[in-house]
């Protein structure tokens, strides 16, 4: 084994350091522009005082920024957005229920399979993953028909059912991987103390799984929040959501674009707020175990 600790004379090392720093600064700028350009574009249009402006007129900042677009949205004066708060409520309803149901059903199933040593339990995990062999957009036609059979046509519950179905396989996978970190001795000890399976689930499993549950919750909310297809097809006009209204921009050439983009910005806020609120748990959930040095704060 040869030991070569010095990569070169000090001058060369210094040059290398400067190059590395310059390279990362350049990469940082590129990433900043790349990440922010579409978001910046949203603000540029939203802050324009005139309704129909989407052209880029050479100004990197709107000459007369105005909150007119936002005002029209909040007061529901803009065309297409007369029911903005109602639609926002529908989105929130679908998103939150998807989140709660995914966390609940997923944690129950992963507890039974992973902790209770249900024989043939892995069959369930495999069957769940098989769901992804049938991509979400493939099932939209049969869903459209079977929701009628279930009496759910035009109901938000049709969309919730679909989103929960697609969120659960990832949720169960994630929860099972994380649960491997909880020692079985804990369960056995609680058993000796006379805990039932339900107590084990509520008092030991759930509290220790909080980081993984946070990741699953954010994932499920974003899945429902990102959905366009299922909401567009399965919901009636009365139950429409913000996501679908946005897509209808294409139908009309003189839609009130500034208000539309203001609405888009408002719609983007809730998941970002959730991600921010749960960031500590999400980081802990993603860095499962965290052996070695924990360089993340």
């Amino acid at each position, binding site marked *: 084994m040869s030991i070569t600790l010095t990569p070169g004379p000090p001058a060369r090392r210094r040059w290398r350091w400067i190059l590395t720093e310059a390279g990362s600064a350049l990469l940082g700028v590129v990433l900043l522009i790349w990440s922010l350009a579409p978001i910046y574009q949203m603000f540029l249009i939203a802050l324009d005082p005139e309704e129909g402006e989407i052209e880029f007129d050479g100004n990197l900042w709107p000459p007369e920024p105005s909150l007119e677009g936002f005002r029209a949205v909040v007061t529901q004066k803009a065309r297409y957005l007369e029911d903005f708060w109602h639609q926002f409520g529908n989105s929130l309803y679908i998103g939150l229920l998807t989140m709660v149901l995914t966390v609940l059903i997923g944690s129950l199933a992963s507890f039974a399979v992973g902790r209770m040593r249900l024989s043939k339990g892995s069959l369930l995990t495999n069957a769940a993953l098989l*769901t992804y062999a049938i991509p979400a957009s493939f099932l939209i036609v049969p869903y459209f028909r079977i929701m009628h059979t279930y009496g759910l046509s035009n109901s938000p519950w049709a969309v919730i059912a679909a989103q929960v179905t697609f969120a659960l396989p990832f949720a169960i996978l994630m929860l099972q991987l994380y649960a491997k970190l909880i020692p079985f001795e804990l369960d056995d000890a609680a058993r000796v103390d006379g805990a039932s399976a339900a107590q084990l689930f509520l008092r030991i499993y759930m509290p220790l799984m909080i980081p993984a549950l946070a990741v699953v919750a954010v994932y499920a909310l974003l899945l429902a929040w990102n959905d366009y297809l299922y909401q567009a097809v399965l919901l009636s006009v009365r139950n429409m959501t913000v996501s679908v209204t946005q897509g209808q921009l294409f139908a009309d050439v003189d839609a009130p674009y500034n208000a539309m983009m203001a609405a888009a910005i408002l719609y983007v806020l809730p998941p970002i707020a959730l991600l921010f609120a749960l960031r500590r748990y999400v980081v802990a959930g993603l860095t499962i175990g965290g052996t070695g040095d924990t360089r993340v704060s």
Partner: protein
Amino acid sequence: MSSTQRVLAAGQPVSVKGPWRSPGHRHLHGSDFTWAIAFVLPYAAVYVAFVVYPFGYALWLAGKPSLYAELVADPLYLSTVVNTLLFVGLGVNVKMFLALLLSGFFLRRRWWIRALLAVYILPWGVAAAQACVSFHWMLIGELGLVDGVLSAAFGIDGPNWFGGRWIGLGSDIAAYIWKWMPFWTVIFLAARLKIPRDIYDSAKIDGATGYRRFVHVTFPLVANLYLLCTLLSTLWTVGDFTTVYLVSGGGPAGATDVLATLGFHYAFETSRPALGIAAVISALPVLIPIAIVLMRRLQTSEAQL
């Protein structure tokens, strides 16, 4: 002190590899079995009602072989298959590779890189429909932001981003990468944070730094995760409807359609639901093996997402 408290007081073991299966000699019996069934029941119900039944129904609707003959005869279908392969193949692989490289960049311990990470993951939080609409407008020709900046800064006339098949697909792939790269970067970043420091220290003594460290030390350690994520992402991306539908709209004249948007077009715009299902079901012979490899890999390896 109860035995639970005693175990808790002893602290959590750093690594728990064994106990996953080891105390398996005890079988479930009596009330425990009832509890286990009760816990699994909600998911089983969801699975039967919203996976098995609709899937069976779809197969029954699209069972007629004549539908597939009709598909193959449609030139639009063949170009759509090529588009789907390109969109998924390029989109997923470029995204994953860049995400892996960038996760290394975000490992650097600088305050500004940490702040940049917060900005970088924003696209993950921006809803897909809104992001795609914004991308569409940014690229909408000479009125769009990109061409506007190109002509203002360099005096070049930018291309018409949705004018042709290849450039339209390229725009779709760019929007797709923008939206989904942050999520996978965070997954890889989390995995690389778990690599113990001493491995790098001994690699350094052996002379492995920079590029060689990445190829011979880091990559072998995350290779399995990389493969799993790529397979999972492939399955998800084949079902991606929003990106193509809202960025290029499948245009010009269906030249950039992928299977997901073509199926939608058949089913809801030309009212041929069976043909729509057939179009998307034709991808199953590729997707099911991918799902099976994914399941096998997850079972046999010590994979951790």
